[in-house]
């Protein structure tokens, strides 16, 4: 091998080392970039056959990503489950604020006040003050039901808005992923920055909705919802839509609709949404809220309670007084919101007597609040029925919050594993830089030595 060949070899080494240092430098620079994983330079031996004047050396191979798809998948799965728990906990926390559990405010206190007013009236059946107290207590009960129904409707409206916002964010992220796929197909495959963006988008998307990611040989990704419904296929994006749904001939015509998730062609993919924030919100909107405020097929606990109370009171009041004490308007799902004291009822019209006793009606009304009283429709006493509703919501919130805490831990663990496998190690980067610096110095020294040798050779030639 001649000196010039050696010089070329050394110069080539300098270039390869320089490229390697570039990769390391890029790692250090992007150590904090979301979604970025460590890239490793690959050095390959060049062909070497001195007999054939093939001088060997080193060549720069492909840059290898340390991304581990299993670790990424685990992070996405845990992130989706965290999204489910987080949105459920947040929504349920809003809802439970509408349930007073102190017993000194809200519906429970109003119910106690009404039964106490009935009891006082039974003791002084012809006392106009006691009669007026019954009217006032009944108005308070109606007001509390109206307020609670209004607050629950507000929670429902907020949840619907959150579902729409979440779907918008999902569509925005799938659009970004689709754009990345376009760039990859246009020749940017292997771009670490693009890869970081893609995986960061996938991770964000997973928090909103559970997804399956399939990597294609051309570097693009296909993103499926529920393992079946394509959100992104190559360079095609399928948008999701929120569509209110009311079945044909609903039992409760004026009930709030359920929320469905559809594709642009109208395909209902709600059942595919089983994880992520969207799943938590849909469960809350389509299952939890209807159990309280009703939907097309059920009245909802709050309306059942309001209607059962109104019916029980009216069944006792109407025969004695001629008109009912409570009124409701609209369908079964509007009972709590529309509960009111009959506008035609005055305290003077309240008749306490029944066929058996002068305070028979008032006494029977007071018995509605007795601890052993069970409403035939509800299967519980009124306060007990309310308690069960509040307890159920509280239990769900407590479970969701516990799940959220657990999922935060599991997500951190998954992220830790991913970090161990794929994260940029600054220590390793420094070590590699020292290593490449030494190699660079050695190659540079080789150039100097060869240069000296050539100089000496030229001088020797001049002396001949």
């Amino acid at each position, binding site marked *: 091998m001649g000196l010039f060949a050696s010089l070329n070899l050394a110069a080539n080494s300098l270039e390869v080392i320089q490229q390697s240092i570039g990769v390391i430098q890029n790692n250090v620079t992007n150590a904090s970039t979301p979604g970025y994983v460590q890239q490793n330079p690959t050095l390959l031996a060049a062909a070497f056959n001195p007999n054939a004047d093939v001088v060997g050396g080193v060549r720069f191979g492909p840059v290898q990503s340390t991304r581990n798809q299993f670790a990424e998948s685990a992070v996405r799965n845990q992130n989706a489950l965290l999204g489910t728990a987080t949105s459920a906990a947040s929504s349920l926390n809003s809802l439970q604020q509408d349930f007073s559990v102190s017993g000194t405010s809200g519906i429970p206190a109003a119910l106690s006040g009404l039964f106490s007013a009935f009891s006082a009236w*039974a003791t002084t059946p012809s006392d106009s003050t006691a009669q007026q107290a019954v009217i006032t207590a009944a108005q308070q009960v109606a007001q509390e039901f109206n307020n609670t129904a209004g607050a629950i409707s507000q929670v429902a409206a907020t949840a619907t808005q959150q579902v729409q916002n979440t779907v918008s964010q999902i569509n925005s992220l799938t659009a970004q992923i689709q754009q990345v796929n376009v760039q990859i197909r246009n020749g940017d495959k292997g771009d670490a920055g693009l890869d970081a963006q893609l995986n960061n988008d996938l991770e964000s998307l997973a928090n909103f909705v559970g997804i399956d990611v399939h990597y294609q040989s051309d570097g693009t990704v296909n993103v499926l919802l529920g393992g079946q419904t394509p959100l992104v296929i190559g360079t095609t994006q399928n948008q999701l839509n929120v569509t209110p749904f009311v079945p044909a001939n609903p039992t409760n015509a004026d009930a709030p609709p359920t929320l469905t998730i559809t594709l642009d062609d109208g395909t209902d993919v709600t059942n595919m949404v089983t994880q992520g924030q969207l799943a938590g919100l849909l469960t809350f909107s389509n299952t939890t809220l209807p159990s309280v405020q009703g939907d097309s097929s059920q009245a909802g606990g709050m309306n059942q309670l309001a209607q059962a109370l109104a019916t029980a009171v009216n069944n006792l009041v109407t025969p004695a007084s001629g008109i009912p004490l409570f009124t409701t308007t609209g369908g079964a799902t509007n009972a709590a919101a529309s509960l009111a004291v009959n506008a035609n009822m005055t305290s003077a019209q309240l008749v306490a007597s029944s066929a058996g006793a002068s305070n028979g009606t008032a006494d029977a009304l007071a018995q509605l609040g007795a601890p052993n009283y069970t409403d035939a429709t509800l299967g519980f006493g009124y306060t007990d029925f309310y308690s069960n509703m509040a307890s159920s919501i509280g239990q769900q919130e407590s479970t969701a919050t516990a799940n959220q805490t657990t999922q935060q831990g599991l997500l951190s663990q998954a992220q830790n594993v991913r970090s161990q496998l794929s994260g940029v190690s600054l220590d390793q980067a420094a070590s590699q830089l020292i290593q490449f610096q030494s190699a660079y110095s050695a190659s540079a020294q080789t150039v100097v030595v060869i240069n000296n040798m050539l100089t000496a050779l030229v001088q020797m030639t001049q002396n001949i």
Partner: protein
Amino acid sequence: MLKGIYANDNAFLAGLNQIENRITVTNQRITSGIDVNQPSDNPDAIEPILALQAEIARITQVQTNLNQVKTSATTADGALQSANTVINQLISIGAEGANSTTTQLARSSLGEEAGQFEQELVSLANTTSQGNYIFGGDNPQTAPYSFDGTNPPTANVANPTNTSSVRDAEENAIVPSLTAQQLFDSPNGSVLQATDALRQALLNNQPANVETALESLRTAATQLNSGAESYGAIETWVTNASTDASQRITNLQSQLSGLRDTDITAAASQLTLDETAYQAAIQAQATLPTKNLFSYLG
């Protein structure tokens, strides 16, 4: 140390957040003195807490009702004692009027005096308490009797009934009063009729009728005393029921406190633990190496 996606930092911050949440909740419990401020604080305790609150409210109202009845019963008892005194005075007047030595003028004067006592008896039959005629039965807003000073007292309500009951904490019911007719105008001995007969006999100077009226008055007095005894029994029942209600309220409040109120000692201990954990976590994080190999390279 591996860096890159800051998983450790996220885990540390999530842990800190959990401790902060616990501290916030514990502070809220200590400040409010109540452990269960929202359903999720203790879902299983919601039903017993609200049931206890409802029962306390119900029994408190029962106690208020009983106190009201007790006030009426006490007033009635006093009225009946006064009526008994009046009857004794009427019996004295009758005895004096029945005496053969008593002159017509004196009898007339005694008749006038009997009329005043008769008026007093009617007033006692019309005794009110808290705006109601306590012997009015089911018509407490109507005076049971009227008396014009000349004719016999007349009942303002024909065939009065008395069906309004009051309940104790266990839902046992009693009718806590008697009507004026039952007490003052009973078929077994009418105080008002006997008194009026005495007045008429004295005014008309009829010693024999005075004697008869006197006998009727004695029989009626026995009947009135029987009514007074009934009121004594009512007062006893009401007093016992009220005491029972009071004890139940105390017991229920104690149960409620056990379910709902914060154990301040335990909460303070928990707060200290959480604050210590918080400080320890921050200090532990602070001691972790923050340098990497680059820090040592010139």
